[in-house]
């Protein structure tokens, strides 16, 4: 069983400050996990702001290099890959669908470019064919998207176009950084369900980064919970979220408000002291 992605005690430090005073911020501390090649899964990273989850995502994408530890894709260190070859295997999806594409340019350009550079398309017709195929997998079609600008579509549609663009490159791993947090609630589940379909039908592994425990419970296979750069709990998604063991995980879980939380703040309802000393508020 070979590993698709292996993180081995990965850490990332940033130094902030000027000439006379520098502060070291440890964004990520000794994170390790592995995804297997023959078992496609949705691996979730749960964390609040400042937990280091986005820094972790960027390291997996090769945008930042780890300060220590190693990240290996299919056995080879990420830094050793030639950039184009790496991007053919790993593609991102970002949080803000309205920022994912240049507002002044048409959307299909990105799809065609990805097809030509990564999909092996050799000409306009081939690129259009690949783009159309990818768009159909996300529930759209090239006829609907051709010639359109980002402002003509909704957040949900734009995010799906972003997923389609990533699919054109035929990657083995997709890193999705908060992909549905800026998508309207009524459109959110279509995208979350889409991730499930990509895993089941295409054998894609997805690293799903989110702060939303409910969608994490719904779609993930395994997950880790990060706090201030450290992994505080990990394991099978349903098990961890149904019965969290670490105090921070419990705190997180108790703070989640769902339609079933009716009356959580009403008179007579006891509010557990939520903030622990030294918490990030």
């Amino acid at each position: 069983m070979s590993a698709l992605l292996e993180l081995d005690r990965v850490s990332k430090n940033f130094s902030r400050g000027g000439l006379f005073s520098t502060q070291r911020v440890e964004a990520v501390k000794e994170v390790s996990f592995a995804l297997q090649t023959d078992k496609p899964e949705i691996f979730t990273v749960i964390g609040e702001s400042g937990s280091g989850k986005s820094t972790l995502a960027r390291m997996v994408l090769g945008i930042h290099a780890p300060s220590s530890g190693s990240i290996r894709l299919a056995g080879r260190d990420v830094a050793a890959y030639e950039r184009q070859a790496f991007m053919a295997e790993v593609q991102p999806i970002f949080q803000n669908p309205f920022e994912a594409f240049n507002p002044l340019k048409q959307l299909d350009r990105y799809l065609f470019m990805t097809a030509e550079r990564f999909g092996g398309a050799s000409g306009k017709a081939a690129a259009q064919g690949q783009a159309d195929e990818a768009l159909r997998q996300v529930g759209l079609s090239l006829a609907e998207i051709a010639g359109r600008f980002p402002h003509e579509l909704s957040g949900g549609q734009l995010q799906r176009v972003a997923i389609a663009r990533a699919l054109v490159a035929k990657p083995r791993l997709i890193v999705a950084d908060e992909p549905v947090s800026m998508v309207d609630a009524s459109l959110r589940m279509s995208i979350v369900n889409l991730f499930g379909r990509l895993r089941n039908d295409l054998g894609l592994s997805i690293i799903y980064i989110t702060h939303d425990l409910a969608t994490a419970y719904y779609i993930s296979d395994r997950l880790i919970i990060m706090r201030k750069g450290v992994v505080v709990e990990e394991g099978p998604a349903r098990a961890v979220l149904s019965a969290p063991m670490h105090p921070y995980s419990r705190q997180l879980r108790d703070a989640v408000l769902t339609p079933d939380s009716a009356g959580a703040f009403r008179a007579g309802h006891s509010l557990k002291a939520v903030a622990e000393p030294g918490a990030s508020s």
Partner: protein
Amino acid sequence: MLTILRDLLRYNIEFRIGLVLVSIVLVMAALSLVAPYPPGDVYLVPPDLPPSSAHWLGTTSRGQDVFWQLTFAIRNTLSFGIMVALLSRVIALVVGLLAGYSGGWIDRVLMSINDTFIIIPLFPILILFYFVLRDTMSTPLLATIMACLGWAYDARLIRSVALSLKTREFTQTSIFSGMKTHEILAREHLPYVMPIVFSTTMNNMNWSIGIEVTLAVLGFTDINTPTIGGMIYWANQHTALVAGIWWWIAFPVGLVVMTFVGLFLLAVSMNEYIDPRSRLARMGGSR
């Protein structure tokens, strides 16, 4: 493009006025092609005549028709300004985009060079060049020198736009779509930078024409090629104002002021149209 021009004409008074002014100037420059007198010759017509129907703007003390001389002068001055503006835009764009996008040591090196050029005192250097090059100093050479001195401010502006663009997510999308650096700069970032380039072009033209006029008045350029500054120089040499030949100074000055104001109005109105935020601000509030 045409709809933009049509809308600007219809709704924006600054654009209309600017367009009228610049059109007058351009027409004057174009008329130089049909001028009856060659530009370099002197004593072709009776000197010191005030404006009349035979000589619309009068004649100079050197026996030249002011009107036709002016057509050559404005043509040369304008083309000088355009040359400088274009050259310096190219340099500013390349330096600004590259420095902003690359970061790291490329950015530091380029910005150090940039800052050096900003603090170079302009006039002493130009005068130095004049004294060194003297006879070989021609208009194209002066234009090149000024272009090399006039890109620095705007390169910094462009760089700051490039810096902010780098952090936007669509830059990452472009990278992961397989675009190379030069493609990203030219195709993704350039459209954002164009409003700055456009308005700074006009400013740059005004600046370079102003310097050229100043240098010419002082006699530091090729005074045999007629330019606005050149005309004023000769007028001063012949103490025109004292002698009462006011038309020799007034009309060149008037025409160059018209050029400045026209270019400025065009820049301001077109920039306002291109930039969506100023559009909303004009309507009295944004959402």
